[in-house]
């Protein structure tokens, strides 16, 4: 219960500091492309180029037999980028901002949260491109889109819980950054992002049920690509899982939090 109580206090704190979160998110986004010629367009270009690479490899070289394959892939790729970039940047968010942690007083949860938010905004900004592609491929999403916010919410909770735990643990175990990078590569390939679910051999397919990111990917594909409602029970389950991950993640964060200012 004590864990939940501190969680409630932390949430209240974060709400109080929302202006700071927002300022830091804007700063993060501005900083990302400051000085580059194309500036903000990189947030569109990066996923586009990545998609082009995968499209080349999988539909030209390896010849995956699937209609509108590049667009299909794009549907799962964008949310994955949000997820993996949040974790990869977030894991260093405490360690990398020693200047803030040791100089000013604010709830440190803000820092991993900022990376999550700035990547979310990047993701949302790249959605118009996705829709243009869908439209160009005559794949028109419809009513199922109204479930999208709930899917985003589920992914947000899940990612936030993970990034809280990782960023705090990374202060003490700095190998985490490297481990995470490799782990995410593996994770990416076991999610049905660059291949459809039916490519997974029947006997392994149950594994998808234990992989929240795979389940989320399928849901994104449902609403964007297949124009059908995802399984609401599974979605509810994912949101519940997200809340559990946040409770645990925040508890881990708080056990390490005391020593941040001294250990950085």
């Amino acid at each position, binding site marked *: 219960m004590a864990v939940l109580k501190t969680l409630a206090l932390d949430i209240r704190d974060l709400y109080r500091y929302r*202006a*700071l979160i927002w*300022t*830091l998110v804007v*700063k993060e986004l*501005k*900083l990302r492309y*400051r*000085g580059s010629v194309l500036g903000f367009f990189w947030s569109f270009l990066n996923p586009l180029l990545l998609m082009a690479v995968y499209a080349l490899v999988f539909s030209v070289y390896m010849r995956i037999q699937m209609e509108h394959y590049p667009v299909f892939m794009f549907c799962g790729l964008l949310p994955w980028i949000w997820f993996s970039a949040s974790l990869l940047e977030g894991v260093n968010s405490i360690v990398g901002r020693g*200047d*803030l*942690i*040791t*100089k*000013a*007083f*604010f709830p440190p949860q803000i820092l991993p949260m900022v990376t999550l938010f700035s990547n979310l905004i990047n993701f949302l900004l790249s959605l118009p491109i996705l829709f243009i592609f869908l439209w160009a491929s005559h794949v028109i999403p419809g009513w199922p889109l109204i479930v999208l916010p709930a899917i985003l919410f589920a992914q947000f909770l899940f990612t936030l819980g993970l990034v809280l735990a990782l960023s705090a643990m990374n*202060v*003490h*175990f*700095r*190998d*985490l950054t490297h*481990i995470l990078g490799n782990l995410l590569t593996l994770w990416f390939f076991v999610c049905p992002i660059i291949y459809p679910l039916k490519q997974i051999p029947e006997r392994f397919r149950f594994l998808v049920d234990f992989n929240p990111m795979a389940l989320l990917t399928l849901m994104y594909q449902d609403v964007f690509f297949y124009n059908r409602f995802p399984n609401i029970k599974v979605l509810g389950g994912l949101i519940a899982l997200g809340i559990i991950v946040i409770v645990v993640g925040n508890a881990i964060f708080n056990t390490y939090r*005391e*020593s941040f*200012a*001294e*250990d950085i």
Partner: protein
Amino acid sequence: MSEAAIELQHVSKRFKRTVLKSNYVTLKDFLLRKRRVPKKGRYIEVLNDISLTVPRGKTIGIIGKNGSGKSTLLKLIAGIYRPDSGTIKVNGKLSSLIELGAGFHPEFTGRENVYINGILLGLTKQQIRERFDQIVRFAELEDFIDMPVRTYSSGMYMRLGFSVAVHVDPEILLIDEVLAVGDESFGHKCKEVIRQFRAAMKTIVMVTHDMSAVEKWCDEAIWLNKGEVADRGEPRRIIDRYRENVKEDEEKTFEAAHQVGTNLLGKRWGDRQIEITKVRLLTREGQEQSIYNLGETTIIEISYRVNEKPPQPVVFGVGIFTADNICCYGTNTDIEKIPISLSRNEGRVRFIIEENTLIEGTYFLDVAIHAEDGYPFDYLQHHTAFAIRSRVKDVGICRLPHSWEMDT
């Protein structure tokens, strides 16, 4: 309004030794359970059971030697560190000048950084917008505010940080050794701000080595020594006690390092027909001492032993050098035509400086016994050191006897 602005009760803070060495555990260490430091010496007590209250509207100066826990105490009050035990209560909006320009990013312009920093310090966007011009004017950065902070000089950077921090309009201000920001005119402004804060009956806690600032501004001084409150009270009295303690300590370490008989950096040469057995620095009363106040009598005593009667007359000499090896003064008995006759095999020679007018600093002493033609019997270079303390911060080598006459 009578409540205390800051209240500390039995606050202790210790740091892990590993932290001080800035080590961190890698996965390998973790898996192998390697302990870099044995369990017992793992913590360093920085603050030990500190209890104090700062009344509202008072200005408190915290003094103490480096490493006495002053800055840690301030960071605890600011909430950056958490105490290991005890409670800290802060009643009122607090702004700290502990680290100026928290969160400044070099790629952003001064304007953008003011907003980020201001929000970090607890202002709302609206409040920053209202105070923005004032902040910039105070920092004297009107022409540079839209340039990236990386192009700023360190003085400009500090000024901007200081300016934002004081415009937060706090009820409690924490200051850590930042009064010397920027050039002189800005320094005056800073002092003016502190004066205004005091006049507005705000609470100020400052950590500083500048005793004159403590004396001038503080209602009360707190002397921290080795993580404990050694004394607190009226600034003048506390400063005197602190200075006394510093002097004693210095003397101890100084004497340990420069014990008579131990050679410093210097060399020793000569054939020891006559050998210097001891060199002592004495006061007029004959007490051994190595730190003198300006103008105090300083006696250099050379003890010698004759091992072999030399054929020619003997000369005793002394030389005093600064730490930069500049000779301040040198003389010997031959130059001054003082006849020496060694009737005994052992004896002492005293060189008495009636009024030591060397300015504040550390000095090295050469002593020598040589023949009239300069042939060395025993030459001790930089054998002993002594220090002069002075309240007057004049410059040069020695203080010439002087007075000022005014016709203004």
